[in-house]
């Protein structure tokens, strides 16, 4: 599953078109989806972004291969970072707390990287000296803090396109849309690649025997400790032997066994699992 969170409709539009996403409404947010991709428009600000990410991530959509993507515009005081340039974010600083967050940069990419500082209100040029070469936005820290509660640091991807040099009165909506649309063609294959790469070698648990173990638990009236011992021993057996353990058949007659006989059966199973 790929989950996009954008602050503005203009940031979302190219991806809605690219993936042919259908609109729904969720908790008052505009939300788009197809079978493998979800996109939510959060509105501006780190709290809005955190709430939107949380709503997405609590829909039981998250797996080891899921990627959580925030893409949007950012300003910067650094004139070397040209308007319309795209940056992959490798560190996020929350301006109000000065706390820093770091997505893991595992998958190879062709983009330039930058740090970003998340502020609480729109900045204009008089503040520019304070921010050095970082990008400046209003969402990334909230988005990351919400995301990291549900996914790992390598599953969080943040892209920013430079919209302005703290001179927002000159912004052209048409130009912004054009820039976002142009970068879509590079960003989408990378996100899909990251998703596929993470899916490729998931640490899969070997096929479980939960149903059989649950039946035995009920029939033998195992204590919680015995149940945990049996579950662990069966899991370890599966990993060591690369095959399932053949549990003894239990029938309704097993229900009538004495406690001594039930405990004897339990110990016998543990003994055999530990061979």
């Amino acid at each position, binding site marked *: 599953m790929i989950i996009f969170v954008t602050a503005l409709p203009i940031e979302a539009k190219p991806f809605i078109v690219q993936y042919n996403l259908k609109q729904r409404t969720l908790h008052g947010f505009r939300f788009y989806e197809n079978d493998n991709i979800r996109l939510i428009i959060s509105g501006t600000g780190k709290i809005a972004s955190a709430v939107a990410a949380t709503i997405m991530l609590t829909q039981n959509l998250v797996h080891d291969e899921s990627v959580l993507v925030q893409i949007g515009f950012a300003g910067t005081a650094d004139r070397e970072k040209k308007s319309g340039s795209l940056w992959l974010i490798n560190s996020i600083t929350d301006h109000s707390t000065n706390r820093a967050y770091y997505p893991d940069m595992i998958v190879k990419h062709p983009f330039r990287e930058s740090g970003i500082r998340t502020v609480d209100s729109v900045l204009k040029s008089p503040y520019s000296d304070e921010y050095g070469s970082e990008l400046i936005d209003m969402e990334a820290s909230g988005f990351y803090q919400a995301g990291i509660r549900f996914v790992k640091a*390598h599953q969080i991807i943040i892209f920013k396109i430079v919209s302005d040099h703290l001179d927002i009165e000159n912004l052209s909506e048409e130009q912004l849309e054009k820039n976002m649309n142009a970068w879509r063609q590079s960003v989408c294959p990378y996100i899909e690649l990251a998703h596929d790469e993470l899916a490729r070698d998931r640490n899969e648990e070997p096929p479980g025997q939960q149903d059989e173990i649950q039946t035995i638990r009920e029939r033998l009236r195992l204590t919680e400790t015995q149940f945990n011992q049996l579950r662990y021993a069966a899991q*370890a057996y599966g990993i060591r032997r690369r095959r399932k353990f053949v549990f003894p058949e239990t029938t309704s007659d097993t229900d009538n066994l004495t406690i001594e006989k039930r405990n004897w059966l339990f110990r016998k199973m543990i003994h055999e699992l530990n061979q």
Partner: protein
Amino acid sequence: MSLINRSFSHIYVERRSEGYDLTSKILKRFPDSQKIDIAHYKDVFNRPGQSFPVQKKSRKLILAVKEPPYLYKGSDFCYHDPNSDFYYTTPALNCVYDCDYCFLQGMYVSANLVIFVNTGDFLKEASELVRDNPAHLSVSYETDLPAIANIAPLCAVWIEWAAAQNHASMEIRTKSVNTGYLKHLTPNPQTVLAWTLSPQTVIDRYEHRTPPLIQRIEAVKRAIQLGWDVRLCWDPVIFFPGWEDAYSESVKTVHRSVPQEAVSDAHIGVFRMNTRYLKNIQRLRMDTDALYQVFERRGESVTYPAEVREKLTGRMISALGEFLPSEKIRVIG
């Protein structure tokens, strides 16, 4: 073509570590790496939401300044001379290798490598420690220092330190075949170089990205030729189908290549691990039988049941007994 970033594609640099020689040397070694300034190494190394198995595929480097303490009392899991106190130090955290049974996976939440650049502070505290009391120091304990010697030349620094001490002994343990750092050093009796010489089957199954046994033996021979004291280690000894033949063969292979009189001693240690670390690792990994054998608790650690331990130890003592005198064979743990 790999889709994964190369190791050390990103280097996180604590702001206060700028200005240290080691920081400059390491950064020069990786001119193409992305440098990210950080306030404190724990902001990266200890942050929540890291995946040790995923990070292992593309380890990052963190350069930091360590705060005291620089030395720690050693664990009972390791051998030390009863006549001296055992300490270990952590000039680096984590290892470039990927051994299935490694306790570091359960000890740290990150697979990234931390190198502390304030080596002088470590040496100062170590010198104070051994000024009046005999102490044994392990400097390659939560890392493999020779394996990163081409990145951070810390082995040479510690060996030169040991040479100047009267009351210290020091072990540098490794699986690396790098001996280049020894070339400009004079052997000293305070330093012992210890190689883990697992059977090739164990290397193939459990010690990923490590050099083959034959190359490790070649490294041992080079160190001996240069005049260094060398310790041979079969630690951990791992139980797996075919262990008996594999370990016997590895001892024979070493026996054929390494003159026994050149060996200081040999250490045998059956797999053991802190219970909490094992539980942490089992939450991350279900891909290796090394972590899912039948274990029993001994105090705060887990190991194989007594009869398995005795079998493994007995077989190793017997195999090594054909090679080394018994006073050179030590059982650890």
